[in-house]
């Protein structure tokens, strides 16, 4: 009996994959783009993202139960489809490499100063490979089991960090100007770019409808959650948020449970790590799946360790954490969102021109 990915499991994966972004350098890079108005960006980007996502999902609704591969194959043909998939693969691979590297950097800087980075990185990727090899159903299950604890502990961390907040820090309300907000919001769509590659796993789900529903829930929750996190971090750090590398980890170092437990970051570490492992296991699974489809490899899961090793090699190219954040990851951030948006718009436009929507309507009418 082949198990299907249920809506709860899918939504949990989607929330973890995107929501976990607040715990790395995303809030600071948003702040550097729009200053005190940074908290609006996730919501506005979410709004921007709504249209292409809606169109993409509409396209998918015509092809019930088909995943992104089938859709691209059908609409764009063999050759263009190949290039589109290849670019998807390269972008998500690079994103995987630099994001995992950043996680390792965080672990290295905050908790394991003396352990070699590569060792930490290798352990991190080992766990992701193990998870990815177990398949998306298991990743979904583990995401669903842990999501409540992750959300609760994250909310708890945010509430605790409001203790020393000054609400004035969000003024001026429009930051450095509405223009900047709009500009930042366009590249900010990268926050939600994972939704596009998540369409790869539609074929593992029981229905496209579940996928659509889960996507909307996750999108709304994530937009609110990222926005809230950026808001609270802005109030906590004010202008220095721009210079703080990893606001979440700095924040959990900052606050304490009363007078007794002053350093509680180690209590949040396991839960944050769990979220990270699950997030990257899912991403690695998707990357492997795209790779297998591009090069027609059956039983591609045996390639997961190999791919992960390559990602590790790419990930250790940047020499310092600063390089990762400001150069490598920043570039991906700039490209990924718009590129993925373009792909989804392209798919919809081709479907429209080919008359697929009319076909579907006729079919239904008959």
């Amino acid at each position: 009996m082949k198990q299907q990915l249920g809506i709860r499991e899918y939504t949990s994966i989607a929330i973890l994959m995107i929501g976990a972004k607040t715990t790395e350098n995303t809030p600071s890079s948003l702040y550097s783009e729009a200053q005190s108005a940074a908290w609006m960006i996730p919501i506005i980007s979410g709004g921007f993202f709504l249209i292409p996502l809606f169109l993409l999902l509409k396209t998918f609704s015509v092809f019930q139960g088909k995943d992104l591969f089938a859709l691209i194959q059908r609409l764009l043909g063999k050759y263009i489809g190949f290039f589109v998939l290849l670019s998807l693969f390269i972008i998500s691979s690079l994103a995987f490499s630099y994001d995992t590297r950043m996680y390792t950097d965080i672990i290295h800087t905050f908790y394991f100063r003396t352990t070699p980075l590569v060792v930490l990185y290798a352990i991190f990727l080992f766990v992701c490979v193990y998870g990815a090899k177990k398949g998306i159903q298991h990743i979904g299950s583990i995401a669903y089991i842990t999501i409540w604890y992750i959300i609760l502990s994250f909310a708890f961390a945010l509430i605790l960090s409001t203790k020393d907040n000054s609400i004035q820090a969000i003024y001026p309300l429009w930051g450095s100007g509405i223009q900047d907000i709009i500009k930042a919001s366009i590249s900010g769509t990268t926050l939600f770019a994972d939704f596009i590659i998540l369409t790869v796993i539609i074929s593992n789900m029981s229905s496209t409808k579940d996928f659509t529903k889960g996507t909307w829930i996750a999108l709304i929750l994530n937009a609110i959650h990222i926005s809230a996190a950026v808001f609270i971090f802005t109030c906590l750090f004010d202008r220095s948020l721009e210079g703080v590398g990893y606001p979440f980890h700095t924040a959990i170092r900052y606050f304490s449970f009363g007078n007794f437990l002053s350093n509680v970051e180690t209590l949040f570490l396991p839960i944050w790590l769990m979220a990270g492992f699950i997030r990257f296991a899912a991403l690695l699974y998707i990357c492997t799946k795209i790779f297998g489809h591009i090069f027609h490899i059956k039983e591609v899961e045996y390639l997961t360790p190999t791919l992960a090793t390559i990602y590790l090699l790419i990930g250790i190219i940047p020499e310092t954490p600063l390089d990762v954040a400001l150069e490598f990851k920043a570039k991906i951030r700039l490209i990924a969102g718009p590129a993925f948006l373009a792909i989804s718009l392209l798919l919809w436009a081709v479907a429209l021109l080919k008359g697929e929507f009319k076909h579907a309507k006729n079919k239904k009418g008959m």
Partner: protein
Amino acid sequence: MFEEFMMKKNLLNTLFNKTRKNPESKDKSNAAEAELKKQAISTDYEQNLATFKTLYSVPDNMDVKVREFTIRSTNQRAFIIFISSISDARVIQEDITEKLIESNIPNKGIPDLCTGPFFTTETVIEKILESINGGNTALFVDGDEQCYLFDTPNIQGRAIGKPDIEVIVKGPKESFNEKVITNISLIRKKSKNENLIVESMMIAKRSKNNVYLVYQKDLVNEELLQNVKDKLHSLDVESIVDLSILEQYIEERPRSLYPTLLYSERPDRAASFIEEGHIILLMENSPSCLVLPTTFWALIHSPEDHYLRTPYGNFIRLLRLLAIFIAMFTSSFYIAVTNFHVGMLPPDLLMAIAGTRERVPFPALFEVLMMEIAFELIREAGLRVPSPIGPTIGIVGALILGQAAVQANIISPIVIIVIALSGLSSFIISDTSMNFAIRITRFLFIFSAGLMGIYGVSALFVVGLFYLLSLKSFGTPYFAPMTPNFVSSKDIIIRHIPIKERFRPGYLKPKDMGKKGKG
């Protein structure tokens, strides 16, 4: 190079095969006997007598009894054969021999003469032997081409006792014993329903071990039932003497650290699982039952969760969940904190720990490992020790390993607290297999904490969780019905009030989902 090696290996293998005795060849000496067993009995009295005397090696076999006599009413020669140690001599005398010898009503058949409530007739020698070996009495009459088998078993065994492992305070206190008939009657007592089926199936060829499948015909999923039967049929073994060994034959991953079948000694638990649509396996000589399929939740639940009122039941469930976490993580957390994350301790506590550790010459990891192993030793010794010298273990354990070790500066007092806490908590999980699994996992966590602190523990935890999620018990995912999600009464971490528990677990795909409105 490699080919050469392979060639040598092949050569060696053939040599070994030549010298090794063919396991089948041993049976050949018995071939004549095996052939004989397949035949039907003869009508000749003397021949039958001789056959069965040789088969049972009478008179060498002291408890196999043969009694020859003449049936008075028909004036035929007859003999009965039975194994006295497992059959009821009084029943044999009153219902068979007495009636046949004394009754003088002419021209009556055997069925009309004997008063035993139940008998069958059989002609094949093999079947007759099987029946006699089960404690029945066989009657052979001169000139009759069939043999009469009377139900006279009286197998000795323990009376129904209290459960030893799954101890509860409130609720029924019967447990299974080694007689399968008693066990079945205990289940039937709790589920008086004509749909309750007890199906017997032979699984081992030599010792003829039977396994009994107990299920509700109108609930159980046919596919699951077939699956279980196929699995049992596919076993090709000489002998399976106990249910706990059968468990290892039929589980999907015999090497896995975590159990995938529930082994229970409580008939009330068995009955409630049957009512949900599970299948129960019973075996002669096993004071327990196996529940298939089993989920993680069934393994950590206790029947008392339901016998207690809802708030109390949930309280002990949460307590048990906490105990699992304490048992698994206290030691590793201590190691991680003292070795890697010193900063997270409040300064006063840190000073206290450092003060007690000051004179201990070992690293924390070694210290904890030493103490954990000592605790496991005490526990195992306590189990095996003959009861008259039992209290000695307590004194030795508590005094020498606790007090003295601290005073000798081998162990710091805080480690004793840590070990005692985790050891104590591990007792709360009543399922033996789960208990072992958690105790062994604790050691894995200790090593990972010693290696990588909290990071190592988290990594191992996620890997372990992935592993657990991929476990299956007869097609049922380990964490069902939580994830993947199935319709159920949501009896997972906490349970609802009984009136709200309206559904049978969906992962079993029972024929009737609803629990209400059915007798």
